[in-house]
């Protein structure tokens, strides 16, 4: 085992021992943390298997040429548009967007477009926006969209092009690419 894995395993073990002891001894802060863990794990279990199934299907069915055409170098400005549309309509939270970002990267999407997709998936999910409008008003949401989307595209472009020069690669999650 690598040193960092040992540290992680040790940390996780301590955490779980703490939770179990808290329940056994009735330590209420520990129990509250345990309940938090349980409810968040449940939320993620509802989403993650489905998301990863869709990613697996994406990997086998979507051709590299299709991704390159819409999200790659040749796509130009349209690439950003597709990224925002994909983010707005399809997937939810960051932890679902990230594995898809890796798949897009593998199939030839440009880094700037991928960062746009990640940024946009945080701010312009349509179902969430509808909810937002009903509580804070259309003007609030409209300002947020109109200001943040261009800024997300701009910052993604700068970050993506800067990293592309250095030959940066997105990792599959098992190892860390840049230390």
């Amino acid at each position, binding site marked *: 085992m690598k040193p960092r894995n040992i540290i992680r395993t040790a940390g996780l073990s301590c955490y779980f021992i703490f939770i179990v002891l808290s329940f056994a001894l009735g330590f209420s802060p520990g129990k509250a943390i345990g309940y938090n863990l349980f409810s968040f794990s449940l939320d993620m279990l509802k989403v993650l298997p489905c998301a*990863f199934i869709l990613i697996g*299907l994406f990997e086998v069915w979507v051709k590299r040429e299709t991704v390159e055409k819409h999200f790659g170098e040749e796509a130009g400005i349209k690439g950003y548009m597709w990224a925002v549309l994909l983010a707005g309509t399809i997937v939810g939270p960051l932890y679902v967007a990230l594995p898809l970002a890796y798949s897009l990267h593998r199939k030839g999407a440009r880094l700037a477009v991928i960062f746009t997709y*990640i940024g946009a998936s945080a701010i312009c999910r349509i179902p969430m926006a509808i909810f937002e409008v009903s509580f804070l008003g259309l003007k609030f949401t409209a*300002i947020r969209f109109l200001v*943040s989307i261009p800024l997300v595209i701009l910052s993604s472009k700068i970050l993506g092009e800067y990293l592309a020069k250095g030959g940066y690669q997105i990792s599959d999650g098992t190892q860390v690419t840049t230390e």
Partner: protein
Amino acid sequence: MYYLQIAAGLALLISFIANREKTLKAVKISLKRFWAILPAFLSMLVLVSIVLFLIPDTLITEYLGSGGKLTGVIIASFLGSITMMPGFIAFPLCGVLLEKGVLYMVLSAFTTTLMMVGILTFPIEKAYFGPKVTILRNVLSFFVALIVAVMTGIFFGEIL
């Protein structure tokens, strides 16, 4: 409500009818990817469970309602960055705060950083992007959120 589950189920079924081998391969890829990222997910869950205990919703409500314009925006963006809350809790909460007289720009700073800046998701993002890029991306997002908050303030006549 369950549209992701329905979509995944349907897609899997259609794929299976179209081509069994490819579908099997897809499921294998899904499992492999999921397994690879699982330790990072566990780290995130542990982090989330602890931070949400330390910073409950009541505390957030209390802090967002206090302070002036500048301090309000700074506190809001700080809270939005370190915590995690689904939209269906965050927006009603903001609706209540709005009625209490909290400024739009403060709510904007809170909701935008909540969505864009993820300190709690760091373990997962790091696994894909590496620590350097993760930090860089989140810092950039933080500034984008601040600009959004300031623009919100300007358009609602809260500053100038």
